[in-house]
Protein backbone atom coordinates (compact mmCIF):
# COMPACT_ATOMS: atom_id res chain seq x y z
CA UNK A 1 0.00 0.00 0.00
CA UNK A 2 1.64 3.21 -1.09
CA UNK A 3 0.20 6.55 -0.09
CA UNK A 4 0.47 9.32 -2.61
CA UNK A 5 1.04 12.74 -1.10
CA UNK A 6 -1.45 14.90 -2.95
CA UNK A 7 -3.59 17.89 -2.07
CA UNK A 8 -6.46 15.52 -1.42
CA UNK A 9 -4.62 13.17 0.91
CA UNK A 10 -3.20 16.06 2.92
CA UNK A 11 -6.61 17.63 3.26
CA UNK A 12 -8.10 14.29 4.22
CA UNK A 13 -5.43 13.83 6.87
CA UNK A 14 -6.06 17.28 8.33
CA UNK A 15 -9.83 16.86 8.51
CA UNK A 16 -9.60 13.27 9.66
CA UNK A 17 -7.33 14.26 12.54
CA UNK A 18 -9.63 17.16 13.42
CA UNK A 19 -12.63 14.83 13.45
CA UNK A 20 -11.06 12.12 15.60
CA UNK A 21 -9.20 14.45 17.95
CA UNK A 22 -12.39 16.44 18.47
CA UNK A 23 -14.29 13.23 19.10
CA UNK A 24 -11.78 12.06 21.70
CA UNK A 25 -11.97 15.47 23.31
CA UNK A 26 -15.75 15.20 23.53
CA UNK A 27 -15.73 11.91 25.41
CA UNK A 28 -12.80 12.62 27.72
CA UNK A 29 -13.13 16.27 28.77
CA UNK A 30 -14.50 16.95 32.21
CA UNK A 31 -15.74 20.47 31.48
CA UNK A 32 -18.90 20.12 29.45
CA UNK A 33 -18.55 23.46 27.68
CA UNK A 34 -15.12 22.35 26.49
CA UNK A 35 -16.69 19.08 25.39
CA UNK A 36 -19.19 21.08 23.33
CA UNK A 37 -16.32 23.03 21.76
CA UNK A 38 -14.52 19.80 20.89
CA UNK A 39 -17.77 18.60 19.39
CA UNK A 40 -17.74 21.67 17.15
CA UNK A 41 -14.17 20.92 16.06
CA UNK A 42 -15.13 17.34 15.28
CA UNK A 43 -18.23 18.35 13.32
CA UNK A 44 -16.20 20.91 11.38
CA UNK A 45 -13.84 18.11 10.43
CA UNK A 46 -16.79 16.06 9.19
CA UNK A 47 -17.86 19.06 7.08
CA UNK A 48 -14.40 19.03 5.48
CA UNK A 49 -14.76 15.31 4.77
CA UNK A 50 -18.08 16.01 3.04
CA UNK A 51 -16.34 18.52 0.76
CA UNK A 52 -13.72 15.92 -0.11
CA UNK A 53 -16.58 13.58 -0.96
CA UNK A 54 -17.98 16.12 -3.46
CA UNK A 55 -21.00 16.97 -1.32
CA UNK A 56 -20.45 20.70 -0.61
CA UNK A 57 -24.16 21.21 0.06
CA UNK A 58 -24.02 18.73 2.92
CA UNK A 59 -20.89 20.43 4.22
CA UNK A 60 -22.67 23.77 4.29
CA UNK A 61 -25.69 22.39 6.12
CA UNK A 62 -23.37 20.50 8.46
CA UNK A 63 -21.92 23.84 9.55
CA UNK A 64 -25.28 25.61 9.46
CA UNK A 65 -27.23 22.98 11.41
CA UNK A 66 -24.66 21.37 13.66
CA UNK A 67 -22.36 24.28 14.51
CA UNK A 68 -24.91 27.06 14.10
CA UNK A 69 -27.84 25.42 15.83
CA UNK A 70 -27.22 22.08 17.55
CA UNK A 71 -23.97 23.12 19.24
CA UNK A 72 -25.58 26.34 20.46
CA UNK A 73 -28.58 24.40 21.72
CA UNK A 74 -26.27 22.01 23.59
CA UNK A 75 -24.44 24.97 25.15
CA UNK A 76 -27.81 26.39 26.22
CA UNK A 77 -28.63 23.00 27.72
CA UNK A 78 -25.34 22.90 29.63
CA UNK A 79 -25.94 26.38 31.02
CA UNK A 80 -29.46 25.44 32.08
CA UNK A 81 -28.24 22.46 34.10
CA UNK A 82 -25.99 24.47 36.35
CA UNK A 83 -23.66 22.70 38.74
CA UNK A 84 -23.44 19.63 36.54
CA UNK A 85 -20.61 20.83 34.35
CA UNK A 86 -17.65 19.70 36.40
CA UNK A 87 -18.52 16.25 37.69
CA UNK A 88 -15.76 14.72 39.82
CA UNK A 89 -15.99 11.49 37.87
CA UNK A 90 -16.23 11.63 34.14
CA UNK A 91 -17.09 8.02 33.56
CA UNK A 92 -19.55 5.68 35.21
CA UNK A 93 -18.76 2.32 36.77
CA UNK A 94 -18.89 0.49 33.45
CA UNK A 95 -16.27 2.84 32.00
CA UNK A 96 -13.56 0.21 31.71
CA UNK A 97 -15.93 -2.40 30.37
CA UNK A 98 -17.26 0.10 27.84
CA UNK A 99 -13.73 0.81 26.64
CA UNK A 100 -13.07 -2.89 26.10
CA UNK A 101 -16.38 -3.39 24.30
CA UNK A 102 -15.83 -0.38 22.08
CA UNK A 103 -12.29 -1.30 21.16
CA UNK A 104 -13.47 -4.83 20.38
CA UNK A 105 -16.27 -3.43 18.24
CA UNK A 106 -13.83 -1.17 16.44
CA UNK A 107 -11.56 -4.08 15.59
CA UNK A 108 -14.53 -6.04 14.25
CA UNK A 109 -15.57 -3.06 12.14
CA UNK A 110 -12.02 -2.61 10.90
CA UNK A 111 -11.75 -6.22 9.83
CA UNK A 112 -15.15 -6.03 8.22
CA UNK A 113 -14.28 -2.87 6.36
CA UNK A 114 -10.79 -3.67 5.13
CA UNK A 115 -10.88 -7.37 4.38
CA UNK A 116 -13.84 -8.54 2.39
CA UNK A 117 -15.38 -6.14 -0.08
CA UNK A 118 -14.25 -2.56 0.08
CA UNK A 119 -10.66 -3.20 1.11
CA UNK A 120 -7.47 -2.49 -0.81
CA UNK A 121 -8.01 -5.59 -2.94
CA UNK A 122 -11.77 -5.64 -2.69
CA UNK A 123 -14.25 -5.79 -5.50
CA UNK A 124 -15.83 -2.35 -5.21
CA UNK A 125 -12.67 -0.27 -4.83
CA UNK A 126 -14.34 2.09 -7.27
CA UNK A 127 -12.72 5.23 -8.54
CA UNK A 128 -14.72 8.34 -7.80
CA UNK A 129 -15.92 10.26 -10.83
CA UNK A 130 -16.19 14.02 -11.10
CA UNK A 131 -19.71 15.18 -10.30
CA UNK A 132 -21.50 18.39 -11.13
CA UNK A 133 -24.54 20.12 -9.62
CA UNK A 134 -25.66 17.48 -7.19
CA UNK A 135 -27.72 19.82 -5.07
CA UNK A 136 -30.35 20.29 -7.78
CA UNK A 137 -30.60 16.52 -8.18
CA UNK A 138 -31.09 16.29 -4.44
CA UNK A 139 -34.03 18.68 -4.71
CA UNK A 140 -35.55 16.74 -7.59
CA UNK A 141 -35.19 13.46 -5.68
CA UNK A 142 -36.73 14.96 -2.54
CA UNK A 143 -40.04 15.93 -4.14
CA UNK A 144 -40.24 13.18 -6.74
CA UNK A 145 -43.47 11.16 -6.56
CA UNK A 146 -41.56 7.95 -7.17
CA UNK A 147 -38.84 8.67 -4.66
CA UNK A 148 -38.74 10.67 -1.46
CA UNK A 149 -41.73 12.96 -1.35
CA UNK A 150 -43.38 11.00 1.47
CA UNK A 151 -40.26 10.99 3.69
CA UNK A 152 -39.92 14.69 2.85
CA UNK A 153 -43.34 15.43 4.31
CA UNK A 154 -42.85 13.02 7.18
CA UNK A 155 -39.64 14.86 8.05
CA UNK A 156 -41.71 17.99 8.43
CA UNK A 157 -44.18 16.14 10.66
CA UNK A 158 -41.33 14.74 12.75
CA UNK A 159 -39.76 18.16 13.22
CA UNK A 160 -43.08 19.76 14.11
CA UNK A 161 -43.79 16.96 16.57
CA UNK A 162 -40.32 17.34 18.07
CA UNK A 163 -40.83 21.08 18.42
CA UNK A 164 -44.25 20.73 20.06
CA UNK A 165 -43.05 17.95 22.34
CA UNK A 166 -39.86 19.70 23.36
CA UNK A 167 -41.69 22.95 24.13
CA UNK A 168 -44.25 21.05 26.20
CA UNK A 169 -41.54 19.20 28.14
CA UNK A 170 -39.12 22.05 28.67
CA UNK A 171 -41.51 24.72 29.87
CA UNK A 172 -41.70 25.76 33.49
CA UNK A 173 -44.52 24.23 35.47
CA UNK A 174 -45.96 27.54 36.59
CA UNK A 175 -46.28 28.77 33.02
CA UNK A 176 -48.17 25.69 31.96
CA UNK A 177 -51.90 26.11 31.72
Amino acid at each position, binding site marked *: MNIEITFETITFAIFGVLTLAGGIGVVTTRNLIHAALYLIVSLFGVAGIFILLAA*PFLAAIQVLVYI*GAIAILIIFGVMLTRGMTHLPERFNRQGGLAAVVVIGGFVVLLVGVILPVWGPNGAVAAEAQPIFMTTRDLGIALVDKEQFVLPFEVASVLLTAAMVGAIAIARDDESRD
Partner: protein
Amino acid sequence: MVGCISDLSACLIDAGIGPGLAGFLETLVGTLIVTLLPLTLVIILVWIERKYSARVQDRVGPNRVGPFGLLQPAADAVKMITKEDITPAGADRIVYNIAPILSALSVILIWAVIPFSPVHIGVDLSIGVLYFFAVGSVGALAVMLGGWSSNNKYALLGAFRVVAQLISYEVPNILAALMPVMIAGTLSMQGLVHAQAGMWFAISLPLSALLFFISSIAEVGRTPFDLLEAESEIVAGFNIEYSGMKFGLFMAGEFLHVLTIAILTAVIFFGGWLGPGVQEVPALGWLWLAIKSTILYLLALHMRSTLPRVRIDQLMSFNWKFLVPLSLVNIIVVAFLFKLVQELGLTPAADETTNIIANLPQTFILLLGNLAIIGGVLVYLRGLGREQRLANEMAAAVDEDVEHHPHHDEEVAAAAVAD
Protein backbone atom coordinates in the same frame (compact mmCIF):
# COMPACT_ATOMS: atom_id res chain seq x y z
CA MET B 1 -0.83 45.06 -18.34
CA VAL B 2 -4.58 45.66 -18.53
CA GLY B 3 -5.03 41.98 -19.34
CA CYS B 4 -3.40 41.11 -16.03
CA ILE B 5 -6.32 42.64 -14.14
CA SER B 6 -8.90 40.36 -15.67
CA ASP B 7 -6.78 37.24 -16.11
CA LEU B 8 -3.69 37.17 -13.95
CA SER B 9 -2.72 33.56 -14.54
CA ALA B 10 -2.71 33.92 -18.35
CA CYS B 11 -0.60 37.04 -17.92
CA LEU B 12 1.84 35.16 -15.66
CA ILE B 13 2.08 32.25 -18.08
CA ASP B 14 2.92 34.78 -20.79
CA ALA B 15 5.67 36.07 -18.53
CA GLY B 16 7.19 32.59 -18.51
CA ILE B 17 5.90 31.06 -15.29
CA GLY B 18 4.62 27.48 -15.25
CA PRO B 19 0.83 27.06 -15.32
CA GLY B 20 0.63 25.28 -11.97
CA LEU B 21 2.62 27.93 -10.15
CA ALA B 22 0.78 30.69 -12.01
CA GLY B 23 -2.55 29.28 -10.85
CA PHE B 24 -1.33 29.11 -7.28
CA LEU B 25 0.08 32.65 -7.42
CA GLU B 26 -3.19 33.91 -8.82
CA THR B 27 -5.11 32.27 -5.99
CA LEU B 28 -2.69 33.68 -3.45
CA VAL B 29 -2.91 37.21 -4.82
CA GLY B 30 -6.68 36.91 -4.97
CA THR B 31 -6.82 35.73 -1.37
CA LEU B 32 -4.59 38.55 -0.19
CA ILE B 33 -6.66 41.16 -2.01
CA VAL B 34 -9.95 39.78 -0.75
CA THR B 35 -8.73 39.58 2.86
CA LEU B 36 -6.92 42.91 2.88
CA LEU B 37 -9.76 44.80 1.22
CA PRO B 38 -12.24 44.50 4.08
CA LEU B 39 -9.54 45.31 6.63
CA THR B 40 -8.58 48.53 4.89
CA LEU B 41 -12.21 49.38 4.33
CA VAL B 42 -13.02 49.07 8.00
CA ILE B 43 -10.77 52.05 8.77
CA ILE B 44 -12.71 54.23 6.35
CA LEU B 45 -16.01 52.81 7.58
CA VAL B 46 -15.37 53.91 11.14
CA TRP B 47 -14.78 57.46 9.92
CA ILE B 48 -17.89 57.50 7.70
CA GLU B 49 -20.01 56.10 10.47
CA ARG B 50 -18.87 58.60 13.09
CA LYS B 51 -19.06 61.55 10.73
CA TYR B 52 -22.49 60.57 9.44
CA SER B 53 -24.13 60.02 12.80
CA ALA B 54 -22.52 63.23 14.06
CA ARG B 55 -24.05 65.18 11.19
CA VAL B 56 -27.47 63.65 11.82
CA GLN B 57 -27.23 64.61 15.47
CA ASP B 58 -26.10 68.16 14.61
CA ARG B 59 -22.54 67.61 15.76
CA VAL B 60 -19.26 68.02 13.86
CA GLY B 61 -17.79 64.60 14.50
CA PRO B 62 -14.09 63.79 14.39
CA ASN B 63 -12.23 66.78 12.95
CA ARG B 64 -8.85 67.02 14.72
CA VAL B 65 -6.61 64.28 13.39
CA GLY B 66 -5.75 64.86 9.73
CA PRO B 67 -7.93 66.62 7.17
CA PHE B 68 -11.64 66.32 8.11
CA GLY B 69 -10.55 63.99 10.89
CA LEU B 70 -9.81 61.30 8.32
CA LEU B 71 -6.93 59.91 10.36
CA GLN B 72 -9.09 59.52 13.46
CA PRO B 73 -9.67 55.76 12.94
CA ALA B 74 -5.91 55.27 12.56
CA ALA B 75 -5.39 57.10 15.83
CA ASP B 76 -8.08 54.91 17.38
CA ALA B 77 -6.30 51.81 16.16
CA VAL B 78 -3.00 52.98 17.66
CA LYS B 79 -4.78 53.66 20.93
CA MET B 80 -6.40 50.23 20.95
CA ILE B 81 -3.11 48.50 20.25
CA THR B 82 -1.21 50.30 23.00
CA LYS B 83 -3.91 49.74 25.62
CA GLU B 84 -3.29 47.25 28.36
CA ASP B 85 -4.99 43.95 27.76
CA ILE B 86 -6.75 42.60 30.81
CA THR B 87 -7.81 39.00 31.12
CA PRO B 88 -10.20 38.76 34.03
CA ALA B 89 -9.47 36.36 36.85
CA GLY B 90 -11.09 32.99 36.36
CA ALA B 91 -11.47 33.49 32.61
CA ASP B 92 -10.98 30.58 30.27
CA ARG B 93 -7.84 31.94 28.61
CA ILE B 94 -7.78 30.06 25.32
CA VAL B 95 -11.45 30.50 24.56
CA TYR B 96 -11.26 34.11 25.72
CA ASN B 97 -8.54 34.84 23.17
CA ILE B 98 -10.08 32.89 20.32
CA ALA B 99 -13.52 34.51 20.50
CA PRO B 100 -12.62 37.98 19.09
CA ILE B 101 -10.55 36.44 16.29
CA LEU B 102 -13.41 34.12 15.40
CA SER B 103 -15.82 37.03 15.45
CA ALA B 104 -13.74 39.07 12.96
CA LEU B 105 -12.96 35.98 10.89
CA SER B 106 -16.62 35.06 10.47
CA VAL B 107 -17.15 38.39 8.70
CA ILE B 108 -13.96 38.31 6.63
CA LEU B 109 -14.71 34.81 5.37
CA ILE B 110 -17.95 36.01 3.81
CA TRP B 111 -15.90 38.13 1.41
CA ALA B 112 -14.62 35.00 -0.29
CA VAL B 113 -17.90 34.62 -2.21
CA ILE B 114 -18.75 38.25 -3.00
CA PRO B 115 -18.70 38.89 -6.76
CA PHE B 116 -17.16 42.31 -7.42
CA SER B 117 -17.34 42.19 -11.22
CA PRO B 118 -17.98 39.56 -13.90
CA VAL B 119 -14.41 38.32 -13.56
CA HIS B 120 -13.46 39.30 -10.03
CA ILE B 121 -14.70 37.01 -7.31
CA GLY B 122 -12.82 35.20 -4.61
CA VAL B 123 -14.38 31.90 -5.56
CA ASP B 124 -17.71 31.26 -7.21
CA LEU B 125 -18.84 28.38 -5.02
CA SER B 126 -21.75 26.31 -6.26
CA ILE B 127 -23.35 26.77 -2.85
CA GLY B 128 -22.35 30.44 -2.36
CA VAL B 129 -25.52 31.55 -0.56
CA LEU B 130 -25.41 28.67 1.91
CA TYR B 131 -21.71 29.30 2.48
CA PHE B 132 -22.58 32.84 3.50
CA PHE B 133 -25.19 31.66 6.00
CA ALA B 134 -22.96 28.90 7.33
CA VAL B 135 -20.08 31.27 7.95
CA GLY B 136 -22.44 33.83 9.43
CA SER B 137 -23.72 31.32 11.98
CA VAL B 138 -20.18 31.04 13.35
CA GLY B 139 -20.51 34.67 14.46
CA ALA B 140 -23.18 33.68 17.00
CA LEU B 141 -20.82 31.03 18.32
CA ALA B 142 -18.03 33.62 18.75
CA VAL B 143 -20.37 35.78 20.82
CA MET B 144 -21.32 32.80 22.96
CA LEU B 145 -17.68 31.87 23.57
CA GLY B 146 -16.70 35.44 24.39
CA GLY B 147 -19.51 35.83 26.88
CA TRP B 148 -18.97 32.49 28.56
CA SER B 149 -15.18 32.65 28.84
CA SER B 150 -15.20 36.07 30.53
CA ASN B 151 -16.39 34.55 33.82
CA ASN B 152 -18.81 37.41 34.33
CA LYS B 153 -22.54 37.11 34.97
CA TYR B 154 -23.42 40.11 32.86
CA ALA B 155 -21.23 39.00 29.97
CA LEU B 156 -22.86 35.58 29.99
CA LEU B 157 -26.34 37.02 30.27
CA GLY B 158 -25.55 39.47 27.46
CA ALA B 159 -24.20 36.66 25.30
CA PHE B 160 -27.37 34.62 25.86
CA ARG B 161 -29.52 37.52 24.78
CA VAL B 162 -27.41 38.25 21.71
CA VAL B 163 -27.37 34.64 20.63
CA ALA B 164 -31.14 34.38 21.09
CA GLN B 165 -31.50 37.46 18.88
CA LEU B 166 -29.01 36.32 16.24
CA ILE B 167 -30.45 32.86 15.82
CA SER B 168 -34.02 34.16 15.78
CA TYR B 169 -33.38 36.64 13.00
CA GLU B 170 -31.45 34.10 10.99
CA VAL B 171 -34.77 32.40 10.18
CA PRO B 172 -36.38 35.22 8.14
CA ASN B 173 -32.97 36.06 6.72
CA ILE B 174 -32.53 32.62 5.18
CA LEU B 175 -36.20 32.34 4.20
CA ALA B 176 -35.97 35.66 2.32
CA ALA B 177 -32.90 34.50 0.40
CA LEU B 178 -34.84 31.40 -0.67
CA MET B 179 -36.91 33.38 -3.19
CA PRO B 180 -34.08 34.61 -5.47
CA VAL B 181 -32.58 31.11 -5.30
CA MET B 182 -35.89 29.66 -6.45
CA ILE B 183 -36.21 31.99 -9.43
CA ALA B 184 -32.55 31.95 -10.42
CA GLY B 185 -32.32 28.18 -9.90
CA THR B 186 -28.81 28.46 -8.52
CA LEU B 187 -27.02 28.97 -5.23
CA SER B 188 -23.90 30.53 -6.71
CA MET B 189 -23.40 34.25 -6.20
CA GLN B 190 -22.37 34.93 -9.79
CA GLY B 191 -25.36 32.90 -10.94
CA LEU B 192 -27.67 35.07 -8.87
CA VAL B 193 -26.19 38.24 -10.39
CA HIS B 194 -26.47 36.86 -13.92
CA ALA B 195 -30.10 35.90 -13.26
CA GLN B 196 -30.82 39.56 -12.60
CA ALA B 197 -29.53 40.74 -15.96
CA GLY B 198 -33.11 41.21 -17.16
CA MET B 199 -34.64 42.52 -13.98
CA TRP B 200 -33.43 43.06 -10.43
CA PHE B 201 -34.98 40.82 -7.81
CA ALA B 202 -35.63 43.92 -5.74
CA ILE B 203 -38.26 44.89 -8.32
CA SER B 204 -39.88 41.49 -8.79
CA LEU B 205 -39.52 40.47 -5.13
CA PRO B 206 -39.60 43.69 -3.09
CA LEU B 207 -40.97 41.95 0.00
CA SER B 208 -38.11 39.44 0.10
CA ALA B 209 -35.61 42.26 -0.33
CA LEU B 210 -37.19 44.16 2.54
CA LEU B 211 -37.29 41.10 4.80
CA PHE B 212 -33.70 40.27 3.96
CA PHE B 213 -32.45 43.77 4.69
CA ILE B 214 -34.36 44.14 7.96
CA SER B 215 -33.31 40.77 9.31
CA SER B 216 -29.73 41.37 8.18
CA ILE B 217 -29.65 44.59 10.19
CA ALA B 218 -30.84 42.61 13.18
CA GLU B 219 -28.17 39.98 12.49
CA VAL B 220 -25.53 42.68 12.65
CA GLY B 221 -27.06 44.05 15.82
CA ARG B 222 -27.57 47.60 14.70
CA THR B 223 -30.11 50.08 15.97
CA PRO B 224 -33.06 49.56 16.20
CA PHE B 225 -31.97 46.02 17.11
CA ASP B 226 -28.80 46.84 19.04
CA LEU B 227 -29.79 45.40 22.40
CA LEU B 228 -26.53 43.54 22.57
CA GLU B 229 -24.70 46.77 23.29
CA ALA B 230 -27.15 49.59 23.80
CA GLU B 231 -24.08 51.70 24.43
CA SER B 232 -26.13 54.70 25.52
CA GLU B 233 -27.92 52.71 28.22
CA ILE B 234 -25.77 49.92 29.64
CA VAL B 235 -22.01 49.46 29.84
CA ALA B 236 -21.76 46.65 27.31
CA GLY B 237 -23.09 43.21 26.61
CA PHE B 238 -21.12 40.05 26.09
CA ASN B 239 -17.88 41.99 25.50
CA ILE B 240 -17.89 43.76 28.87
CA GLU B 241 -14.62 42.22 30.07
CA TYR B 242 -12.77 42.77 26.82
CA SER B 243 -10.28 45.61 26.53
CA GLY B 244 -7.65 46.86 24.12
CA MET B 245 -7.34 45.32 20.71
CA LYS B 246 -9.58 42.34 21.49
CA PHE B 247 -12.46 44.70 22.09
CA GLY B 248 -11.33 46.48 18.91
CA LEU B 249 -11.66 43.30 16.93
CA PHE B 250 -15.26 42.81 18.05
CA MET B 251 -15.99 46.39 17.02
CA ALA B 252 -14.13 46.13 13.72
CA GLY B 253 -16.04 42.96 12.94
CA GLU B 254 -19.31 44.73 13.59
CA PHE B 255 -18.46 47.78 11.46
CA LEU B 256 -17.37 45.53 8.64
CA HIS B 257 -20.45 43.35 9.00
CA VAL B 258 -22.72 46.30 8.26
CA LEU B 259 -20.96 46.95 4.95
CA THR B 260 -20.92 43.24 4.20
CA ILE B 261 -24.68 42.88 4.54
CA ALA B 262 -25.16 46.02 2.43
CA ILE B 263 -23.03 44.45 -0.30
CA LEU B 264 -24.83 41.12 -0.02
CA THR B 265 -28.22 42.80 -0.30
CA ALA B 266 -26.91 44.63 -3.35
CA VAL B 267 -25.66 41.37 -4.86
CA ILE B 268 -28.69 39.21 -4.14
CA PHE B 269 -31.44 41.75 -4.81
CA PHE B 270 -30.04 44.83 -6.57
CA GLY B 271 -28.13 43.24 -9.40
CA GLY B 272 -24.63 43.32 -7.87
CA TRP B 273 -22.13 44.51 -10.44
CA LEU B 274 -24.71 44.82 -13.21
CA GLY B 275 -24.75 48.21 -14.85
CA PRO B 276 -24.15 49.95 -18.16
CA GLY B 277 -20.90 49.01 -19.86
CA VAL B 278 -20.03 46.03 -17.65
CA GLN B 279 -19.94 43.59 -20.55
CA GLU B 280 -17.29 45.66 -22.34
CA VAL B 281 -15.23 46.74 -19.31
CA PRO B 282 -15.64 44.19 -16.52
CA ALA B 283 -13.79 46.37 -14.02
CA LEU B 284 -16.74 48.80 -14.11
CA GLY B 285 -18.57 46.22 -12.02
CA TRP B 286 -16.62 47.38 -8.98
CA LEU B 287 -18.03 50.88 -9.47
CA TRP B 288 -21.67 49.78 -9.82
CA LEU B 289 -21.44 47.43 -6.85
CA ALA B 290 -19.76 50.18 -4.80
CA ILE B 291 -22.51 52.68 -5.65
CA LYS B 292 -25.34 50.26 -4.83
CA SER B 293 -23.82 48.99 -1.62
CA THR B 294 -22.90 52.50 -0.46
CA ILE B 295 -26.50 53.60 -0.81
CA LEU B 296 -27.68 50.59 1.20
CA TYR B 297 -24.90 51.15 3.75
CA LEU B 298 -25.90 54.77 4.22
CA LEU B 299 -29.50 53.62 4.63
CA ALA B 300 -28.38 51.32 7.45
CA LEU B 301 -26.40 54.20 9.01
CA HIS B 302 -29.39 56.48 8.74
CA MET B 303 -31.55 53.91 10.47
CA ARG B 304 -28.96 53.72 13.21
CA SER B 305 -28.87 57.44 13.81
CA THR B 306 -32.60 58.10 13.65
CA LEU B 307 -34.59 55.15 14.96
CA PRO B 308 -35.29 54.43 18.62
CA ARG B 309 -34.33 51.13 20.20
CA VAL B 310 -36.87 48.35 20.75
CA ARG B 311 -37.31 46.28 23.90
CA ILE B 312 -36.22 42.66 23.93
CA ASP B 313 -39.76 41.26 24.14
CA GLN B 314 -40.77 43.48 21.20
CA LEU B 315 -37.67 42.30 19.34
CA MET B 316 -38.59 38.66 19.75
CA SER B 317 -42.28 39.16 19.01
CA PHE B 318 -41.45 41.17 15.90
CA ASN B 319 -39.38 38.31 14.60
CA TRP B 320 -41.45 35.26 15.49
CA LYS B 321 -44.92 36.75 15.19
CA PHE B 322 -44.39 39.03 12.21
CA LEU B 323 -41.29 38.40 10.09
CA VAL B 324 -41.34 34.59 10.15
CA PRO B 325 -45.06 34.12 9.32
CA LEU B 326 -44.73 36.82 6.65
CA SER B 327 -41.73 35.02 5.14
CA LEU B 328 -43.67 31.75 5.03
CA VAL B 329 -46.65 33.42 3.32
CA ASN B 330 -44.22 35.09 0.93
CA ILE B 331 -42.66 31.75 -0.02
CA ILE B 332 -46.03 30.15 -0.73
CA VAL B 333 -47.32 33.07 -2.80
CA VAL B 334 -44.12 33.51 -4.81
CA ALA B 335 -43.78 29.76 -5.40
CA PHE B 336 -47.37 29.60 -6.64
CA LEU B 337 -47.04 32.64 -8.92
CA PHE B 338 -43.71 31.51 -10.28
CA LYS B 339 -45.13 28.11 -11.19
CA LEU B 340 -48.17 29.83 -12.70
CA VAL B 341 -45.94 32.06 -14.81
CA GLN B 342 -44.06 29.02 -15.98
CA GLU B 343 -47.21 27.08 -16.85
CA LEU B 344 -48.54 30.07 -18.79
CA GLY B 345 -45.27 30.24 -20.69
CA LEU B 346 -44.51 33.79 -19.61
CA THR B 347 -40.97 33.14 -18.44
CA PRO B 348 -38.34 34.68 -20.71
CA ALA B 349 -36.86 32.25 -23.21
CA ALA B 350 -33.37 30.94 -22.57
CA ASP B 351 -31.79 33.38 -25.04
CA GLU B 352 -33.81 36.34 -23.82
CA THR B 353 -33.06 36.31 -20.09
CA THR B 354 -31.09 39.56 -20.34
CA ASN B 355 -33.86 41.30 -22.26
CA ILE B 356 -35.89 43.61 -20.02
CA ILE B 357 -39.03 43.44 -22.17
CA ALA B 358 -39.04 39.63 -22.10
CA ASN B 359 -38.80 39.72 -18.31
CA LEU B 360 -41.66 42.16 -17.85
CA PRO B 361 -44.64 39.73 -17.64
CA GLN B 362 -42.95 37.58 -15.00
CA THR B 363 -41.79 40.61 -13.05
CA PHE B 364 -45.23 42.19 -13.24
CA ILE B 365 -47.03 39.12 -11.87
CA LEU B 366 -44.52 38.57 -9.07
CA LEU B 367 -44.55 42.26 -8.16
CA LEU B 368 -48.35 42.23 -8.08
CA GLY B 369 -48.30 39.24 -5.75
CA ASN B 370 -45.77 40.94 -3.48
CA LEU B 371 -47.77 44.16 -3.39
CA ALA B 372 -50.91 42.15 -2.59
CA ILE B 373 -49.18 40.59 0.42
CA ILE B 374 -47.84 43.95 1.59
CA GLY B 375 -51.27 45.53 1.16
CA GLY B 376 -52.97 42.69 3.01
CA VAL B 377 -50.51 42.95 5.87
CA LEU B 378 -50.98 46.72 6.09
CA VAL B 379 -54.77 46.40 6.17
CA TYR B 380 -54.51 43.65 8.80
CA LEU B 381 -52.12 45.72 10.93
CA ARG B 382 -54.40 48.73 10.61
CA GLY B 383 -57.32 46.70 11.88
CA LEU B 384 -55.23 45.27 14.69
CA GLY B 385 -53.95 48.71 15.65
CA ARG B 386 -57.47 50.15 15.70
CA GLU B 387 -58.67 47.27 17.86
CA GLN B 388 -55.85 47.83 20.32
CA ARG B 389 -56.37 51.57 20.36
CA LEU B 390 -60.07 51.11 21.08
CA ALA B 391 -59.26 48.65 23.83
CA ASN B 392 -56.78 51.10 25.32
CA GLU B 393 -59.28 53.95 25.10
CA MET B 394 -61.93 51.82 26.76
CA ALA B 395 -59.53 50.93 29.55
CA ALA B 396 -58.57 54.59 29.94
CA ALA B 397 -62.22 55.63 29.98
CA VAL B 398 -63.02 53.12 32.70
CA ASP B 399 -60.05 54.38 34.70
CA GLU B 400 -61.25 57.96 34.31
CA ASP B 401 -64.73 56.96 35.38
CA VAL B 402 -63.43 55.38 38.50
CA GLU B 403 -61.32 58.43 39.29
CA HIS B 404 -64.09 60.96 38.74
CA HIS B 405 -66.76 59.04 40.59
CA PRO B 406 -65.10 57.41 43.55
CA HIS B 407 -68.50 56.17 44.74
CA HIS B 408 -69.45 54.80 41.38
CA ASP B 409 -69.94 51.30 42.67
CA GLU B 410 -72.08 52.44 45.58
CA GLU B 411 -74.23 54.51 43.24
CA VAL B 412 -74.78 51.51 41.04
CA ALA B 413 -75.61 49.43 44.07
CA ALA B 414 -77.99 52.12 45.32
CA ALA B 415 -79.69 52.29 41.92
CA ALA B 416 -80.06 48.54 41.91
CA VAL B 417 -81.63 48.64 45.36
CA ALA B 418 -83.97 51.47 44.29
CA ASP B 419 -85.15 49.37 41.40
